[in-house]
């Protein structure tokens, strides 16, 4: 079979921008760059289509022929749909080839700040695949799924223990869904007291989804500027706080990876005027085992199981964003609640103050189960160790890079650190160039241009699952790039040179998106 657009094999020999960097420890051979060897171009299935080619052979018809026009009249289409015509081997190879271009935690380091791309232990997948779990049906009688309910019940209790909260719901399907659920409960709480209120305070260092969740619940967003040290300023909150403020939404640690030291003071100010405190728990992995947000004033908090508790980042697939709440919000939790009577687990669906159902059946049970396994495997001590190692790794990266890259906020970091491209700007190099150049060194780039309060931010979250050798490999690459920015800036500005695709025209892709031929 002749492949179209085939140019990659000769390309590999003509490269001029091969990285010059050498690993400090030559015994490690981890880098999985995927740009050497047999890399094939891959046309779309439509481009590969050959008229008449089939992947199946149907047996001869042994029943009377049927004319669809007689049964459906005008509804029958004039011509066959334009689907690709291919053999089974074409399709199998197409998708297998594409699958080799994925980058994942099972391939290598993935330091996306704010995203917590930790390695997901395989034991969780193994348990989720056990037939007793995988084959349960949501309509089974509760008496036959007592084990599943017990897992939900215990996971709720553990999440409450970890967050210092009173009760929890497991059903939200993602962190953002958890935020929405939390804000709906806050609205229900205020509505029950006669006034849903009209505003929500959100610091400029909060997660980007927070304002969206508040607006979806019909609140106006009031932005609170962080102080010069990158922290939330109680004075600024006090000035913005009045009896129309329903809640404040705080990401702690914030998007600079810095612990909000004034959390309790801020919570007290908001509570004093009848407001509630929503804690964005996306960075719970930096607090777990050390700080319980419920004990310092949080009333609601979502927990991204795919971040802190090592369940897969769905890639658009199922996630889970349970919400834990204080006593004040417990009556408003979504239905159903899980209850335990003696040794028997059951569900409750008739709480009149509840905001109702926010998901079908029992949420994404398979994801909840994986988080349950993660917690059971690590135990209380292990979870504390996760937090310690995540913080140590982030601070190690920060210490190794701070002489080469500008550190806009120098307060101690927790689980991630944020640099800017200020020093590299002097050589005409920007954050995007540095990120692209990292790909030439076999590293997935970190989060860039977020948080917004840092110009040209480079946000690195190594997580606890990476070893020192791998962190060194990443830091060596970053330091080499910093030196390239000074000596050979064009090399960095034209990066990447090794990956299968070079610099993509992101602006054209967004402006002239071709969604349909």
């Amino acid at each position, binding site marked *: 079979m002749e492949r179209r657009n085939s140019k990659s094999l000769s390309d590999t020999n003509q490269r001029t921008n091969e990285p010059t960097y050498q690993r400090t420890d030559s015994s490690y051979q981890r880098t999985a760059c995927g740009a050497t060897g047999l890399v094939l171009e891959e046309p779309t299935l439509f481009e590969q289509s050959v008229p008449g080619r089939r992947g199946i052979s149907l047996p001869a018809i042994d029943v009377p022929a049927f004319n669809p026009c007689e049964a459906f009249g005008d509804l029958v289409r004039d011509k066959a749909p334009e689907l690709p015509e291919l053999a089974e081997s074409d399709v199998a190879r197409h998708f297998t080839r594409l699958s080799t271009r994925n980058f994942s935690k099972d391939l290598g380091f993935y330091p996306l700040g704010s995203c917590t791309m930790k390695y997901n232990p395989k034991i969780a997948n193994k348990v989720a695949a056990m037939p007793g779990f995988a084959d349960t049906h949501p309509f089974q009688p509760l008496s036959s799924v007592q084990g599943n309910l017990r897992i939900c019940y215990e996971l709720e209790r553990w999440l409450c223990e970890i967050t210092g909260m009173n009760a929890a719901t497991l059903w939200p399907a993602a962190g953002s869904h958890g935020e929405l659920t939390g804000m709906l409960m806050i609205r229900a709480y205020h509505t029950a007291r006669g006034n849903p209120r009209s505003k929500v305070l959100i610091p400029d260092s909060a997660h980007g989804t927070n304002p969206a969740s508040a607006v979806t619940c019909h609140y106006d967003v009031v932005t609170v500027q962080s102080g010069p040290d990158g922290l939330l300023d109680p004075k600024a909150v006090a000035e913005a706080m009045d009896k129309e403020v329903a809640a404040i939404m705080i990401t702690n640690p914030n998007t600079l990876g810095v612990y909000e030291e004034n959390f309790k003071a801020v919570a007290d100010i908001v509570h004093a005027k009848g407001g509630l405190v929503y804690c964005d728990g996306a960075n719970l992995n930096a607090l777990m085992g050390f700080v319980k947000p419920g004990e310092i004033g949080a009333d609601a908090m979502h927990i991204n199981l795919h971040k802190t508790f090592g369940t897969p980042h769905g890639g658009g697939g199922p996630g889970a964003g349970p919400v834990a709440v204080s006593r004040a919000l417990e009556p408003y939790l979504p239905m159903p609640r899980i209850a335990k009577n003696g040794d028997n687990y059951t569900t409750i669906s008739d709480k009149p103050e509840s905001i109702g159902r926010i998901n079908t059946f029992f949420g994404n049970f398979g994801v909840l189960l994986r988080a349950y396994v993660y917690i059971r495997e690590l135990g209380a001590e292990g979870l504390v160790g996760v937090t310690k190692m995540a913080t140590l790794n982030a601070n190690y990266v920060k210490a190794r890079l701070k002489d080469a890259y500008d550190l806009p906020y120098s307060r101690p970091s927790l689980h991630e650190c944020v640099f800017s491209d200020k020093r590299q700007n002097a050589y005409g190099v920007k954050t995007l160039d540095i990120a692209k150049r990292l790909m030439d060194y076999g590293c997935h780039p970190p989060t860039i241009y977020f948080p917004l309060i840092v110009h040209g931010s480079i946000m690195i979250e190594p997580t606890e699952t990476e070893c020192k050798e791998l962190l060194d490999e990443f830091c060596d690459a970053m330091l080499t790039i910093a030196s390239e920015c000074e000596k050979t800036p064009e090399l960095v500005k034209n990066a990447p040179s090794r990956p299968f695709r070079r610099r993509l025209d*992101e602006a054209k892709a967004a*402006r002239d998106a071709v969604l349909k031929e």
Partner: protein
Amino acid sequence: MNAPDDLRYTKEHEWVKVEGNVATIGITDHAQSQLGDIVYVEFPGQGETVTKSDSFGVVESVKAVSDCYAPVSGKVVEVNDSLTDSPETLNEDCYGEGWLLRVEMSDPAEIEDLMDQKQYIAFVAEETA
């Protein structure tokens, strides 16, 4: 940095040109260069009202989505529709073809609160220091 001397400026990097009672509003050269390649814009329609300091629209670049804040209050009398199909005009000619809105001012005195060219250049220098 390019900032013409016949315009007034906001701290959120919008510019205003006043002709009679009508204010033409856009984003500054500094704003477009910080945003990078602009790929999408969203603005109110003709006849809607905007309120000083309130968000009136959105500019989206490959890096970020940013709110635009009204430098003055008033009724929108004209919208630069051509930006919908060619948002790159905002990068190429932000003080000319890349204007956003024309607003009939309800309180022309609001102009006095805005920065002039010198103040704006000093403000940007301080902000990026």
